[in-house]
C-alpha cells in the first residue's frame, strides 16, 4: 500500500519563498532601515537635536518649499496639457490621430535633463540663442524672461512629464464603455453636456492618478533642477542632498544631513501615494467596456486644422527644436558662436569617441542597464509568483517590501545603498560599478514585480492545477506551464527597466566613481565643468542610442506579440 508523503518538506514552494524574502530584505529593506537609523539615531541613541538642526536650517526650508512649488506647478501645467491632448486624440476627429498618439509619447523618450540642457542653451538669460534673438528684434536691454528660475523648471518638467497623464487619460477615454455615454445621449443630452456631466467625472480617477504620478516624479527629480536651478542657488530636495554630500566631501556629517532630508522626501512621497490610493478607492469606477465599440466622437469642423497645427507646433517646439539644437551645438567649434555652417564641424563628434570618458560611460550604462534589467526581471518574476500564486503566511511582508521602492526616490535609494554597501557589513562596493548595479535593482524592482504580477494574474490557478492533476510536480509545472505563460510579463519588465536605467541620472549621480560614470553622469559632469559643447555632443550621442533602442525594442515587442497571439 502506498503511504502518503509528509506534509512538510523542503519543496519548491518553500525555496521560492525563502529566496524571495532574502532578496527583498537585502536589496530593499536594509537600505531603508539604515537611512532611518542614520537619520534618527546617533551612536545607538535617538538623537532629535541633530534632526531639528537640519530642519531649522533655512536652506532646508527653501529646498522643501521649492520642491513643493515646483511639484505643484508641474502637476497643474502637465495635467492640463495631458488632458487636453488626450481628449483631442481620443474623442475628436482630429486627423492623423494614430500618428499623433505615437508622437505625443516621444517627449517621454527624451531624458528631461537633456531637454533642460537644450533649453538652457536656447533661453538662458545671457547667452541663450533665442533670448539673444528676441533681444535683438525688440531692442531689449535685459532678457524678457529667465529660464533659470522656478518658472523655467516648472515649464521644462511639464513639457516632458505630461505623457504620464496623456497615456492614462487617453486609455481611459478609449476603453470607456460607450453605452455610458449613449444612455446619456438617448436621455436627451447633447455632446457638450455629456462631456461635462458624464465623461469628465468618469475619467477623473485616471486624471488624478496621472497627476499624482507627476507630482511624485517631480518631487524626486534631480536632472532639471540641477541644470536650471543650481547655478542660481535654487535647490529642491534631491539637488540639496547632492549638494550637501559633495560639499562635505562625502563625510558622515554630510550623509547624515542627506538622510534627514531623504526622510522628508520619503514622507512626502508616502503621503502622495496614500492620497492617490484613497482617491482611487473612492472614485474607482468600473467603466471599461467588454466588447470594443466606437466611442462618441466630437466633430471639430472648423477647428480641425487649427488644432492640428497646435499639436504639430507643440511637438516641434518640445521635441524637434531641442533635439536639433543639441545636435548643432554639439558640432560648434566653440560655444557662443552663432549657429552657421562655417562654425560647425563633425570633429567634435569624432573627438568625442576618442575620449575615454565617452566610451567608458556608454559602456558602463549599457552593461549596467542590461545587467540590472536582467537580474531584476528574474528576481521580480520569482517574487511575483510567491505574492500572486502561493498561499503562504507572511506574504504581506513581501508585498510591502516589493511596493516600497515606488515611494523611494532615486536619491534616497542611492543614499541607502551608500550606507549599506560601504563596508558596514563587510562588503564594500563604494566607487565600483556594483553599487550602481545594486541601486538599480532596488530602484526598479517594483516595476518588475508590478509587470510580472499583472502577467501572472492572467494565468488562472486552474492552469497550474491541471498540470498537477496530469502528473507534473510543482517544479515541472513552473517550468512547463507558468514560465512560458509569464514570458510576456518578463520581457516587458526587462524593457521597462532597461531603457530608464540606460538614461537615468538621479541615482548614479550620487554613486559614481572616477571610472564608473554613466552616460547621464558624464553629460552632467561636462555641463558642470562648463563644457557645454561637449555636453551637447555627448547628449546627441545619447539621444541616438536611446531613440534607436526605443525603436528596436518596440519592433521586437510588436513581433513577439504577433508570435504569441
Amino acid at each position: 500500500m502506498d503511504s502518503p508523503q509528509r506534509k512538510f518538506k523542503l519543496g519548491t514552494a518553500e525555496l521560492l519563498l525563502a529566496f524571495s524574502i532574502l532578496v527583498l530584505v537585502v536589496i530593499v529593506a536594509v537600505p531603508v532601515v539604515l537611512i532611518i537609523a542614520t537619520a534618527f539615531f546617533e551612536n545607538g541613541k535617538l538623537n532629535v537635536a541633530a534632526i531639528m538642526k537640519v530642519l531649522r536650517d533655512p536652506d532646508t526650508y527653501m529646498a522643501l518649499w521649492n520642491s513643493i512649488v515646483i511639484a505643484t506647478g508641474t502637476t497643474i501645467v502637465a495635467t492640463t496639457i495631458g488632458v487636453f491632448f488626450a481628449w483631442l486624440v481620443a474623442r475628436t476627429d482630429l486627423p492623423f490621430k494614430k500618428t499623433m498618439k505615437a508622437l505625443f509619447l516621444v517627449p517621454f523618450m527624451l531624458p528631461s535633463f537633456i531637454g533642460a540642457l537644450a533649453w538652457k542653451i536656447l533661453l538662458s538669460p545671457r547667452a541663450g540663442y533665442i533670448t539673444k534673438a528676441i533681444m535683438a528684434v525688440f531692442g531689449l536691454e535685459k532678457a524678457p524672461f529667465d529660464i533659470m528660475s522656478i518658472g523655467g523648471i516648472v515649464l521644462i518638467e511639464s513639457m516632458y512629464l505630461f505623457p504620464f497623464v496623456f497615456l492614462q487619460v487617453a486609455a481611459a477615454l478609449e476603453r470607456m464603455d460607450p453605452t455610458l455615454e449613449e444612455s446619456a445621449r438617448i436621455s436627451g443630452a447633447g455632446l457638450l453636456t455629456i462631456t461635462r456631466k458624464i465623461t469628465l467625472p468618469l475619467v477623473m480617477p485616471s486624471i488624478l492618478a496621472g497627476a499624482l504620478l507627476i507630482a511624485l516624479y517631480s518631487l524626486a527629480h534631480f536632472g532639471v533642477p540641477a541644470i536650471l536651478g543650481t547655478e542660481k542657488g535654487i535647490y529642491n530636495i534631491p539637488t540639496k542632498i547632492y549638494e550637501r554630500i559633495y560639499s562635505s566631501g562625502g563625510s558622515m556629517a554630510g550623509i547624515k544631513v542627506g538622510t534627514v532630508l531623504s526622510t522628508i522626501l520619503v514622507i512626502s512621497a508616502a503621503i502622495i501615494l496614500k492620497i492617490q490610493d484613497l482617491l482611487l478607492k473612492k472614485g474607482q469606477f468600473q467603466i471599461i467596456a467588454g466588447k470594443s465599440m466606437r466611442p462618441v466622437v466630437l466633430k471639430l469642423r472648423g477647428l480641425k486644422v487649427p488644432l492640428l497645427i497646435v499639436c504639430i507646433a507643440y511637438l516641434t517646439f518640445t521635441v524637434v527644436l531641442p533635439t536639433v539644437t543639441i545636435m548643432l551645438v554639439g558640432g560648434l567649434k566653440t560655444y557662443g558662436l552663432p549657429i552657421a555652417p562655417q562654425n560647425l564641424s563633425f570633429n567634435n563628434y569624432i573627438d568625442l569617441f576618442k575620449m575615454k570618458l565617452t566610451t567608458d560611460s556608454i559602456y558602463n550604462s549599457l552593461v549596467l542597464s542590461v545587467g540590472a534589467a536582467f537580474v531584476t526581471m528574474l528576481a521580480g518574476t520569482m517574487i511575483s509568483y510567491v505574492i500572486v500564486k502561493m498561499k503562504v503566511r507572511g506574504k504581506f511582508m513581501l508585498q510591502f517590501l516589493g511596493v516600497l521602492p515606488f515611494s523611494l526616490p532615486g536619491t534616497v535609494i542611492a543614499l541607502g545603498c551608500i550606507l549599506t554597501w560601504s563596508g558596514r557589513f563587510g562588503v564594500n562596493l563604494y566607487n565600483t560599478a556594483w553599487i550602481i548595479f545594486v541601486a538599480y535593482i532596488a530602484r526598479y524592482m517594483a516595476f518588475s514585480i508590478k509587470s510580472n504580477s499583472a502577467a501572472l494574474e492572467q494565468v488562472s490557478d486552474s492552469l497550474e492545477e491541471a498540470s498537477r492533476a496530469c502528473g507534473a510536480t510543482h517544479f515541472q509545472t513552473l517550468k512547463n506551464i507558468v514560465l512560458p505563460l509569464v514570458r510576456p510579463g518578463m520581457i516587458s519588465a526587462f524593457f521597462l527597466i532597461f531603457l530608464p536605467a540606460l538614461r537615468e541620472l538621479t541615482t548614479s549621480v550620487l554613486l559614481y566613481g572616477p571610472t564608473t560614470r554613466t552616460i547621464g553622469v558624464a553629460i552632467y559632469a561636462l555641463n558642470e565643468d562648463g563644457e557645454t559643447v561637449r555636453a551637447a555632443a555627448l547628449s546627441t550621442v545619447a539621444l541616438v542610442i536611446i531613440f534607436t533602442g526605443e525603436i528596436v525594442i518596440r519592433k521586437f515587442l510588436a513581433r513577439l506579440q504577433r508570435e504569441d497571439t
Partner: protein
Amino acid sequence: MAYLSLKDVTKRFSDGTVVTAVNRLNLEVEKGECFSFLGPSGCGKTTTLRMIAGFEDLDEGELSVDGQIFSSSYKKYYLPPENRDFGMVFQAFAVWPHLNVYRNVSFPLEIRRLPKHEIHERVSRALKYTGLAKQEHVFPKQLSGGEQQRIALARAIAINPKVMLLDEPLSNLDPKLREEMRFEIKDLQKKFDLTIIFVTHDQAEAMALSDRMLVMRDGVVQQVDTPLGIYDRPANEFVFSFIGLSNFIPVEKSVSGVRVAGENQAGEVGLRPDSEGSAFKMACRPSEIELAPDGAGPGVKAVITRRTYLGDIVDYLAKVGGTEIRIQKPRRGSNFAAGDKCRLVFNKARWFPAG
C-alpha cells in the same frame, strides 16, 4: 396606423468588404405592443435597434414614430438620438456610477428642464414601480446586477417615452433573476402602457415576453408573427430549427402516403405533404411525436437507442433504420427503455424540400 414603422430600411458596413447588416427591413409596431427581435448573433437585430435609437443612421429607407419621420434617406433627414424621446435599457445596464439612484433617474428629466416638483414626482413614481423607492441615495456599485438593471428601467420610464428600447437587457443576470425580471417588465408595460421593442438571442425570453416578434437571419427578416405562430407555423426551415428542438426526417412518397427514406419495411408515416414532389424533409418537434408500444397499429417501426431521464420529461432517441429521431414525452405514462422496439406515430409535421 402603426405607431413605429420601418420602411425598406437597409444598413451596410464596410470593413474591407461591404456587408449588408440589415436588408430592406419592413416593420410596423402597434402602440402598446411588446415586440421582440430574435436571431443568432450577427443577424442584424442589434443594428436595427441602434438605427431606431439613432446611434446608427440608416443607409436607405425611412423610420417614423407616431406619424413623425425620424430618419429618411429619401428626404435626407436625420434626427439625432437626444431628440427622439426614447427610453433605452442596455445589456450592461449603463447606469452612471458617479451618480446615485435618484440622480441617475432624474438626469433625463433635468436635461429636459422640467420643473423641480415634477421631476421629483416622476422619479418617485418610477422608483416605486421598480422597487427602488428606499434606495434613492444609494450608489450603483452598492447594488446587485438586478437592482442596477431596475435603475436603468426606472430611468427609461420616468421620461414617459414614446417607445422603450431594450438591448438584451437580461443577458447579464442569472437565470432565476431573469425569469423574475421578465414578469416585472411585462407588468411595467401594462402599468405605463409602454410600447416596447427589445432585442434578445434567448428564445424562451422572446416567446415569453412578446406580443409579436420577428426572427432575423443575416440581415433578412424570416418571419413576423405571434410567438405561438412562430413556434407552431414556422415560415421556413431556419425558423423551425432556430426555435426549440427539431427533427428533420428525410421522407419519400410511397403508394399511400409517405415513408421514411430508404426504410420501406418500417411502415407508413400517416401524413401527406401539402405540395408536389417525391422527396421531402419532414420537420417535427420531439414533443409532437407519439410513442406507442411495438405491435399492430399505425406508425413507423423504430428501436429506442437512448433514454435520458430529465425529470418531468423523458428524452428518447429512436432509430428507424439509419435515421435518428428524437422524442420527448412527459415522464408520466412513458416507460420505454433503451433497446425496446416501438412505433412512432406522427400527428403533425411541416414539409420542406429535400436536400
